[in-house]
């Protein structure tokens, strides 16, 4: 069977796997952003926490993704077979790019601007919300963009622990030694990644201020 024929005969299955995949990615990204952006703000002020947080996030990133999924399975509450474990692993994977970019974005602001803000009588909170964050936004978004593209790719491996998504086709195709089946998972995943990159890139350019 040619890949195209397989695609046509299984299009509703592929579409639903794509939606599952997208859901997995969106949930994981929502958690990752909710954790990493505030944590990034926190480590700007807290020197001791900084090395620790960036270190831990880097360690997660170095664990091969398949191994990370495997490690999580036996852990109570977060582990087990299925989507929950997959989401936890994806969140851990996505943390570093967002955390690092948030920290870099917030700290790479011209000191003269921060000096002026303080000297004008802005409080620390006002400086964070009205000066640091708006100026760091495009760099933070670049981190989110990188993390999203990585997550879309890594999420294909989530099928190995029964989380569904486009990886299902890839694993099935590998087992069947069928390129057509592998491509039915790989092509939509690649397209999703490209689309996410393009869209977030457009947003990033729009909000860039300097």
């Amino acid at each position: 069977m040619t890949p195209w024929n397989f695609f046509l005969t299984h299009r509703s299955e592929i579409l639903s796997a794509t939606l599952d995949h997208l859901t997995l990615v969106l949930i994981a990204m929502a958690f990752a952003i909710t954790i990493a952006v505030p944590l990034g703000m926190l480590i700007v002020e807290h020197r001791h926490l900084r090395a620790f947080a960036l270190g831990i996030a880097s360690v997660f990133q170095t664990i091969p993704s398949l191994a990370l999924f495997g490690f999580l399975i036996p852990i109570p509450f977060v582990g087990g077979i299925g989507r929950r474990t997959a989401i936890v692993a994806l969140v851990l994977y996505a943390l570093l790019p967002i955390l690092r970019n948030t920290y870099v974005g917030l700290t790479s602001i011209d000191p003269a601007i921060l000096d002026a803000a303080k000297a004008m009588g802005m409080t620390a909170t006002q400086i964070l919300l009205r000066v640091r964050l708006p100026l760091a936004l495009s760099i933070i978004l670049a981190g989110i963009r990188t993390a999203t593209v990585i997550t879309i790719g890594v999420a294909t491996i989530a099928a190995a622990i029964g989380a569904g998504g486009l990886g299902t086709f890839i694993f099935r195709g590998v087992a069947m030694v069928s390129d057509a089946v592998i491509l039915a998972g790989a092509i939509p995943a690649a397209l999703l990644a490209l689309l996410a990159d393009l869209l977030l890139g457009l947003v990033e350019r729009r909000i860039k201020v300097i």
Partner: protein
Amino acid sequence: MNERLAGPSDAAIEFRGVSYHINDIPGRAIVSNVSLTISRGETLVLLGRSGSGKTTLLKLINRMLVPSEGQVLVEGRSTTEVDPIRLRRGIGYVIQEAGLFPHFTIAENVALVPTLEKWPSARIASRVEELLHLVGLEPAEFSSRRPRELSGGQRQRVGVARALAADPPILLMDEPFGALDPVTRAELQREFSALARRLNKTIVFVTHEIREALQFASRIALLHGGRLVALAPPQDFLRLDHSEVHAFTASLAIPSGVSE
């Protein structure tokens, strides 16, 4: 307004035996035992080489820094006793390169302190217009632009307007014209010295250029190695017999072979 009516002998800012050392290590003093009274309405110029402690002294006034020893009094109260946010909003601050917010329009930059102070928006708008006129920028042309669309000289004008926005009685200026090309600098210096005379504010002006000091100062305070080594009105300053004064007056000399 009561402060304005007080006599010129009244102190706006007072340094009482002030020292400042990094990490409170006495051996590494940036400022050592400075005592100095700055009168209301005067323009005091802090003159000195790089690293002489002049910017540090300036930052002790609006509590960007806190003295390691001694006291800094603003309007009679120690800076460590008052709320730093309130203190800073009552003191204008102009720095080199202006330090404007790149994501704010010119109008928003100028309106910063009034906005923080929650002035009504109509009052803010009219104040911004008035200030832009004051510093020689046409509001219709500049209000909605961003700092990056302005020249260095124009940005510095905005910096002055922003510092004056809430009409603070004290203005701190840290080499405000230092980053400008010589022609623009001379232009702004001329305009600003006329403006300063009209505004009747207490101005503390940091510079390493004796020409600028002579042009603006009612008194010049010369700093060397963190110590106050000379204090005099401009006309007397050049006659002082101190090696650091000689070093600065020597920098005034016209190169030999160049005639008027």
